[in-house]
């Protein structure tokens, strides 16, 4: 896309603005209603197959200020949640230290087991009591240096592991990584990612959820796996070279996968997966992407390099009549 200098400046400004405001999970730009983790007795057809979820936080190396992990509506009942009983529990655990990210299991998307690699810093289990219903719970403060230093990511990594314990409820919640205990105050340069995402779509016809998987230079193809989409619309893939490629989507309680080749220009770029809902009903689903080696591809909350857009090339020919 050709941008005039003014548009470019505006774009950079908006990106920086986005960076400041994008410490939430789900991120605003993802347009996802809630993260979903169901208790381990819930029916898979509710949208969660493995009842756990991992998010990774990348704290920039030069960040020395303590930070907080704020959770909105961490309880298993009341508002927002899928309530089937009154005894469901969900555990939120914060991991740092060696292995919280680098351990192979930490990136595992196939395991139905909880992951315990790294050093657990803190943990709390929430039930259906309404103390935190529609309220914020705050973990922390955390010293950034408690994370696992990953040089190639130029930051300390923390892992948030969410486990659905007993019960059948679906816990829907949001996270915010904040500099402040009491408010959502973004940390400059912070990003978050996950390898497998279970979430509730916005219950509105033609709402568009967006995911931002990043493909590195080694990726030549990806396989997009979706679970329990309930045939609730269309899933499209965008990239520099792909313009609205249809991604096979699942019906109720099933995994479906579709393979997409990655061209040279798409390497080291962020793809854009758009999930377009066709009706207003509630829908929780799961998604992950693997590369040609069946290794998971991360979804970043803030698209690395900016949101991807297909590049139209316009050929211009001047002539006279």
């Amino acid at each position, binding site marked *: *896309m050709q941008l*005039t200098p003014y548009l470019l400046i505006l774009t950079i400004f908006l990106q920086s603005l986005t960076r400041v405001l994008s410490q939430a999970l789900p991120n605003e730009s993802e347009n996802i209603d809630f993260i979903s983790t169901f208790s381990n007795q819930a029916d898979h057809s509710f949208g969660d197959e493995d009842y756990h979820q991992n998010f990774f936080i990348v704290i920039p190396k030069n960040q020395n200020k303590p930070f907080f992990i704020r959770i909105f509506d961490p309880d298993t009942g009341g508002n927002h949640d899928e309530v089937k009983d009154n005894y469901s529990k969900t555990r939120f655990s914060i991991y740092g230290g060696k292995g919280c990210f680098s351990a192979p299991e930490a990136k595992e998307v196939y395991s139905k087991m909880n992951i315990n690699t790294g050093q657990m810093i803190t943990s709390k289990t929430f039930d259906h009591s309404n103390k935190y219903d529609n309220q914020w719970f705050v973990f922390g403060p955390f010293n950034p240096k408690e994370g696992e230093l990953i040089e190639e990511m130029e930051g300390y990594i923390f892992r948030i592991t969410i486990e659905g314990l007993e019960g059948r409820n679906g816990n829907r919640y949001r996270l915010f990584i904040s500099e402040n205990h009491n408010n959502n105050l973004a940390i400059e340069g912070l990003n978050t990612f996950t390898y497998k995402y279970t979430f509730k779509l916005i219950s509105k016809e033609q709402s568009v959820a967006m995911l931002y998987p990043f493909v590195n230079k080694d990726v030549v193809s990806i396989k997009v796996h979706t679970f329990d989409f309930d045939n609730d619309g269309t899933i*499209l893939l965008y990239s520099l070279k792909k*313009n609205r*490629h*249809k991604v096979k989507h699942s019906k109720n309680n099933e995994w479906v996968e579709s393979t997409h080749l990655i061209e040279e220009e798409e390497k080291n770029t962020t793809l854009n997966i758009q999930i377009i809902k066709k009706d207003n009903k509630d829908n929780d689903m799961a998604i992950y992407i693997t590369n040609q080696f069946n290794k998971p591809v991360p979804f970043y909350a803030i698209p690395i390099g900016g949101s991807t857009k297909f590049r139209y*090339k316009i050929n211009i*020919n001047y002539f006279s009549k």
Partner: protein
Amino acid sequence: MFRLFYSVVLILFFNPIFVSFSMTFPLDSLIKKKKLDKVVNIRFDFSNIEYTIGSFNGNRNETDEIPLVLLNDIVILSKGKRNQEGFKTLSYKIGLDSKQNIGAGIAMNTNFEQSLSKNISEFHLTVNDSNLFVPIGNCLYTQHLRTISTLKSNFLSQKNLEKKEFEFNSEFYNVIHLAENPAKDKFIFSSNMPNSFGGYDLYFVEKKEGIFSKPIHLGPHINSEKDELFPSFINNTRIVFSSNGRNNKSDFDFYTYSLLEKTNEAEPIHAINTTYNEIALVADPSFSFGAFASDKPLNDPSYRDYNIFNFRKEIIDAKSKYEYFKDSVDMTLEKTNSCVQLDLSNSIDKNGLSYEYLWEMGDGGTAQGEKIEYCYTQPGKYIVKLICIAQSPVKIKEECNSVQIDILPSLMLEINSKDTLTVDEIFEGIIKHNWHEKDFVIKNIFWKTDESQFYSGNILFGKFNSSGWHKLEAILETEIKGKRKIKYLSKKIFIRK
């Protein structure tokens, strides 16, 4: 053999009536009279890659034309016409050839027949402080130079126009082609006086406080065993002359020499010299514009003997541009492009869901489709936005890309207002444009027909001699926002019988 003849009848200068008419030509009135746009088109030969040739349009039919002096942008030239009996001048004209290569005026037109008792003559002119043309010299001159024993050049005072014989005239040898520098303190003439290397050599004299120095033979760097003729000062120190005895060449070619750099050999002017005779070069001080006479054949064989050609550095550039355009697919371009074709078709991802494409053209207009054509009515810069539209599975209307379109003002070659022309019908060629006047100046227009007729001038008065399809081409030397640009236009014309 040197076939030039030209003459001025000396006796005319003694005729009080003629003198009163011809010795002073107010420059302003001449310029007013010449009606630059319409009086004359000047011929150009685009086929010569070294320089573009122009000439007074009287270059035809057994006449010799010789440039005499360059005054500002104007070449003063003499024109001779000989009859079938030999080298006799029937009439003489002095015309103007402006730097713009347009227009000419007749400064003097008289019949010299009664004065042709002896061969032929030429004028040498200069301009005085009042912008009056003043003959400074004349000589008798024939094709057989060495057989004439007593030719003289005469010098006339610039102030009172009294005829005064040049101090170095002699009854025993010829003193011809007197030239003076702009400061009017250095003179060079050609003579076959006894100490010459052979034929005519060039001599130098200086004038200090009204007194001439002794003539100095200009030596072997300039003079040869053959003839050095037609010296001319380009500026106060650099001269140009014609020689047929240098560089083992037998035809007359131009050489230039700096009087300040006396150790250097005179340098041939390769850009102009040909295997034919080139004589009598006059040029502006920067040597970017001038005129000369040559017997080089023109495309039309009736244009024989000596014709005046002009040369311009700028025209050399135009030439190269012309060569470029000749190979270009835009050869038949008739006006600059005010329309655009915008084409997405090669970049559309056929594996994706389709879009509709809307183009917002930046002037309020729109177009739809993967490939569109659009014409702007006004020149300018336009930001075209490509809007991608989809209705399903979700309604999308977003800007997908944008490009800047730069529509130059149009430039159009038009011929009359008539649709058809007939053979031998005079037509007018004109260039129209919609540039803002402060941004766009047409400096020169050079016209060419496919019948090998060459012209210049803001308006072309041309004709085609045969029926059928013809092509008219124009090279425009323009100034766009202060920068020189060459534009090319052509038009196909059908000529009826």
